[in-house]
């Protein structure tokens, strides 16, 4: 029985310890906002935060996690879609099909947490998630907008 801390709640899960976090989130805990895209940590649709850092949960066995590791999924990013990244995404109508967007939003939120005013180069380096619809132009603009929102709130 593994113990996981997800979105501030404790879960006891009874699975093979080699099961990737993605599938524990989706199939044991019932949080389906985190998506399966490739299973080999290439596309980023499964991105979650582990202790504030963006991690690709499809290639992260739960055996690699401690009970104290704080896991945050898209459902736990904010209670009411009020995170600056979510607000900016809404303002610029970023998503198209939306399937990759949970991962994009989590990656962007982690970037802004470590780099509050990212340059385009910072964005290029940090945002390696695949979007097949092609929302990259709006993702870039929305990250800059989210930085503005966050910095205004902070100020």
């Amino acid at each position: 029985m593994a113990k996981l801390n997800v979105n501030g709640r404790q879960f006891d899960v009874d699975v093979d310890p080699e099961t990737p976090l993605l599938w524990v989130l989706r199939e044991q805990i019932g949080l389906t906002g985190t998506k399966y895209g490739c299973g080999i940590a290439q596309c980023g649709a499964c991105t979650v935060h582990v202790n504030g850092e963006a991690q690709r949960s499809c290639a992260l066995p739960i055996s690699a996690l401690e009970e104290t590791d704080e896991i945050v999924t898209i459902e736990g990013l904010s209670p009411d879609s009020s995170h600056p990244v979510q607000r900016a995404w809404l303002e610029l109508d970023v998503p198209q099909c939306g399937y990759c967007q949970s991962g994009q939003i989590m990656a962007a939120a982690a970037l802004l947490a470590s780099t509050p005013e990212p340059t385009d180069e910072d964005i290029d380096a940090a945002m390696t998630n695949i979007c097949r619809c092609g929302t990259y132009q709006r993702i870039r603009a929305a990250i800059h907008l989210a930085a503005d929102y966050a910095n205004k709130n902070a100020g």
Partner: protein
Amino acid sequence: MSERHRISRRGFIVGSAAAAGGLALGFHVPFAAAQTASSTTSEGAEVNVWVLIQPNDDVVIRIARSEMGQGTLTGLAQLVAEELECDWSKVKTEYPTPGQNLARKRVWGDMSTGGSRGIRQSQEYVRKGGAAARMMLIQAAANAWSVPASECVVEKGVITHKPSGRTTTYGKVAAAAAQLEPPAEVPLKDPKDWKIAGKPMKRLDTAEKLNGKLVYAIDVKLPGMLNAAIKDCPHFGGKLKSYDEAAIKNMPGVRHVLKIGETGVAVVADTWWQAKTALDALPIEWDEGPNADVSSETIAELLKEGLDSNEGVFVGNQAGDVKAALEKAAKKVEAVYGTPFLNHACMEPMNCTAKWTPDRCEVWVASQNGEASLAACSEAAGLPPEKCEVYKHHLGGGFGRRGFQDYVTKAVLAAKQIPGVPIKMIWSREEDMLHGRFRPITQAKLVGALDENGDLTGLHFRISGQSILAAVRPAGMQDGMDPLHFQGLHASADSPFGQFGYTIPNLLIDHAMRNTHVPPGFWRGVNHNQNAIYLECFMDELAHAAGKDPLEFRRKLMGNHPKHLAVLNAAAEKAGWGTPPPEGVYRGICQHMGFGSYCAAVAEVSLKPDGKIKVNRLVIAVDCGIAVNPDQIAAQVEGSVVYGLGAAFFQENTVEKGRMVQENFDTFESLLIEHMPKVETVLVPSGGFWGGIGEPTIAVAAPAVLNAIFAATGKRIRTLPLKHHGLV
């Protein structure tokens, strides 16, 4: 099988294939009168099939097409709301089910969503649905007040009797309105008077895409549901020979190992991860079938033979005597191009949940054609369509892939073996990559004749390669010719497949059909993509050979094509063509027409210190006639650049032993944000026609960049992807 069953299935099959191929369907769907029973899920008064109004004044607009990111849901709702004169902030949407459409004699018309047709081919009847509902709601209010309807006006769902000043709302009169006869005459607004349509309204489906709440098909959870992973024979045309069930039957969670048709095997387990883990451990032997000797090399030879052959050749467009023109040429230019097979690679892998009982079969699915899903469900279930139902979910990407229903069939074939238990079958990314419906592989040979003035007097454009329709919809062939193969190259402005934008006195565009065993499909933009690359890069070659500016060279040939020319000029002007670019920046230009819309692009590229190219900017002009949502049009243009350039930069599916080689995103790479140029959309809607927008601009992204690469490097790239040329 009953007669009715057969007929309806044939109807579905025609509808499905036509849809995905961008063919115009010949039927007209009128807005229909309300029926007593509201058959969709929302409560409220169904004024007509498109409009349901709730007592709190919320308006539910029915959307028959599928939302896969392209924004059709919002655009169609805008068109209905515009005529309805309702409060946009109170608009919600819902999908009628394909089973309801069948039961109600297709009152919602065609549900298929492909060929950039979602809005342009349903706009008239959905607008009439909104307008008729408005007239009936006003009439109901007038009846209640015993006044003439002509004395009443409506704004944002509030009806006012002008002489008395009395007001009521749509929510209050909807039930009475639903009892009225629909009006015989339903005039529509002139688009210049639009207040909701034509405006950059926010999408209606964004909020749930930001917090993980949207339930995609892959997220479906039903009571008692089990999960299935599948492997189908990777060698196209091969079969399942054997598997060793005993080796995995004791693995955690495993419940069943099922044969799926003659070609596949599925493991059913408590969770999908358990099913996939067990399937990966399952010893399987494949019968590689009759195509095990086929490789990319043998296919390339087949296509190469077609470049100069007289066998199996079909003419798509012709004028004058091209042979004579080439003999008389002052200068002859010749080039051979090629593009590979391509998988759609939707972010959400193929998946479908199915529940089968002897009396009924239901599927939960992301489909570009719900009616084709119903037909596939019916066939695999062995039940008439009246005993089947399809619950549509928003798609995690479609791009043409989800017009095909193989993933529905396989899920139903699994569920049928475990009656009463819902089975969610998810394809792994590897399965999705191996079992695509691939953009067909082609090569092209172009030979141009220039006279002593450097004017183009003749062009022979020979395409050699695979036909989609021959494999997918033989009924769409015309005397053996695949008209879809000539997308953007047809002589007639009335062609549904796109008009060639140049007048060349001696012209021959023909297709040596060379079909492979690889299953082809409609890949966003379809044959426009490669046709535009071949033609527009070669036009650039001709311009340079003639010593002329590529824009001026084209303009001289476009006098009879004012719409093509206008967008080319619009792109050139916005990009500053003719003015010196910034130092180290090089430009390329092109134009193409498809899906009823005219497109042109100017690309700006520069070289990085390591010799790789950077695409800095793409200016794309588009004339789609009437623009329903300018912001979503821009979003589609931006997205089309990613889809087109991702293919041009990185993507190919190669063949070994009759199967695809690439299995995941590590070898089938996508464009990333670091590669994204600044995209400037120049929307020049000239009015008077309805063009598509989901696909047409893909065709101009790659040729503009390839022509700019030539300007930057002097290197003419004639085969894709660019990763093989050391440029990305």
